């Protein structure tokens, strides 16, 4: 009897909390359904393109700013401008203001790689996955490294002879690296 009451209480609690909908398994569900099939190593490799701040995911290859200049002019300048500042799409180059991080206070400052991006590896990841707009995913690792080197050089973050590769890129410290904080909004009465 007591067991039945406890079970009923549990069932009611589960129903009241919408337990099943909150991600918990149905009480009658098996540990596994066995749907889907094992992914092959080739399938994973073909799609696993992300690059993390510690360099995980960076492929072999390398490039310098000097090598990136010609690729930039051919494949990027039409959208981002001859020097990376003219647009019409996102402005890529710029360190202004040289000190401070006034973007919250002042909408006049344009965010660029040089003044806002916290990780150099993100640049590799994004150019590789999404650029150029009319031929996404078409660049070779060497081309991406060269473009990354060129853009970091244009933003005065590396020298024009610096070689960017899987070892050096994660060590590049971006100017805005220390500016980012985790969301501290929690609901409740305070406006943050």
């Amino acid at each position, binding site marked *: 009897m007591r067991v039945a009451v406890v079970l009923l209480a549990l069932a009611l609690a589960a129903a009241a909390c919408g337990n*099943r*909908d*909150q*991600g*918990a*398994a149905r009480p009658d*569900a098996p540990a*596994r*359904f066995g*749907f*889907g*099939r*094992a*992914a092959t190593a080739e*399938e*994973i490799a073909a*799609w*696993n*393109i*992300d690059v*993390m701040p510690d360099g995980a995911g960076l492929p072999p290859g390398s490039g310098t700013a000097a090598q990136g200049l010609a690729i930039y002019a051919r494949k990027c300048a039409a959208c981002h401008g001859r020097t990376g500042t003219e*647009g*019409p*799409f996102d402005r890529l180059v710029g360190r202004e203001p040289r000190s*401070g*991080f*006034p*973007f*919250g*206070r*002042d*909408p*006049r*400052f344009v*965010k660029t*790689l040089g003044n*806002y*991006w*916290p*990780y150099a590896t*993100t640049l590799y*990841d994004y150019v590789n*996955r*999404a650029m150029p*707009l009319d031929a*996404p*995913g078409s660049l070779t690792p060497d081309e991406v490294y060269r473009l990354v080197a060129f853009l970091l050089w244009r933003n005065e973050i590396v020298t024009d002879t610096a070689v960017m590769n899987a070892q050096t890129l994660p060590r590049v410290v971006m100017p*805005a690296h220390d*500016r*980012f*904080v*985790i*969301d*501290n*909004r*929690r*609901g*409740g*009465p305070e*406006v943050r």
Partner: protein
Amino acid sequence: MADVSISRRALLASAASAVGAHALWRVGHAQVPAQAPHTIVPPDPTKVPGAPLSELGRRSPFERPRRIPVGSAQGSSLAPLQDLYGIVTPADLHFERHHAGVPAIDPGRYKLLIHGMVERPTVFDLEALKRFPSVSHLYFLECSGNGGSSYRNIRPDLTPQLIDGLTSTSEWTGVPLATLFREVGVKPGAKWLLAEGADAAVMARSIPMDKAAEDALIAYGQNGEALRPEQGYPARLLLPGWEGNANVKWIRRIEIADRPFMTREETSKYTDPLPDGTARMFSFAMDAKSIITFPAYPVILPERGWFEISGIAWSGRGRISRVDVSTDAGRRWTPAELQSPVLPKCHTRFRCLWRWDGRETTLLSRATDETGYVQPTLEQLRSARGLGTSYHFNHIRAWRVRGDGTVMFGLEG
């Protein structure tokens, strides 16, 4: 292409559609819809047989609700909030935001790969996803940039659509992400998942694993039918209450890890620069918000007398607990009636009767959610976030009613 400002033409189109599709009397004088319907209407419909059955329904030719596209493949389109009743957004009017257009995906060749810190890296085709136990829930989905047009250079000729059209509510059907994670066996220490789409931007976001345990879905159904291509056909991630961008559409890969991936969309975009010289990242939850959708620009009140003020409120943190409305620029506030059901992380329709005395005034709505969060004033939000901040614009919206019955968007008070 890069022009993301709202063009005069788009604005006029919106005004025309609002005038054409909504009750004509509300603009105070007879006005012909921008494009008159071609349907021949008999003088007396009871004296002629009606139209035959059909395989697919259509709207009345007299109703022309339209999204307003801003930009092209990389832009967004805004839902016509002022033309909608209740809380559900028709799927073909659901707002859009794409980073590289809408991909064409053959559901027969669709695959979702889950790998990384899992016991069994697995590929699910659409049929496999649909075999799992499913759930259906009404949730709002909102772009975190929604409301940006009302934050800085405020213009009086903004419609609800142009202010807050990047929010929509649908009934979403799918499989809880937690079910899929039990299937693949998540390894200890897993903290983040990367969700990646099959669009030309291969759009990707890092999501905390806790959200999967809470209420995340892989959704394949929207308002009773398959997802629309613009909403992620054939399957998308749905993170109830969280900023639209993280709800990755056309999802093809989930990688589980012990740390975030720091993609472009969670570093250089979708972060909130603050007045103290920092930028907030992973600001997923959409705070409580409301907007009056009637009366609102370009409506003209035809005469003094009774009107029903109506609008929507929503919170990414749970249920709306109350909406207060002021018809005197914020001096007095009255609780609005909330239409049941009031669902968590879902649009809630509020209504309130108002007798306009013909005098100039300002209408305001203020939402409170079940965490006790109160929709802030523009001043409060600017003080907390700064004038330059980029997302999460949930301040109180104000409508100025003039003596001649015109209603314009405006500042509070």
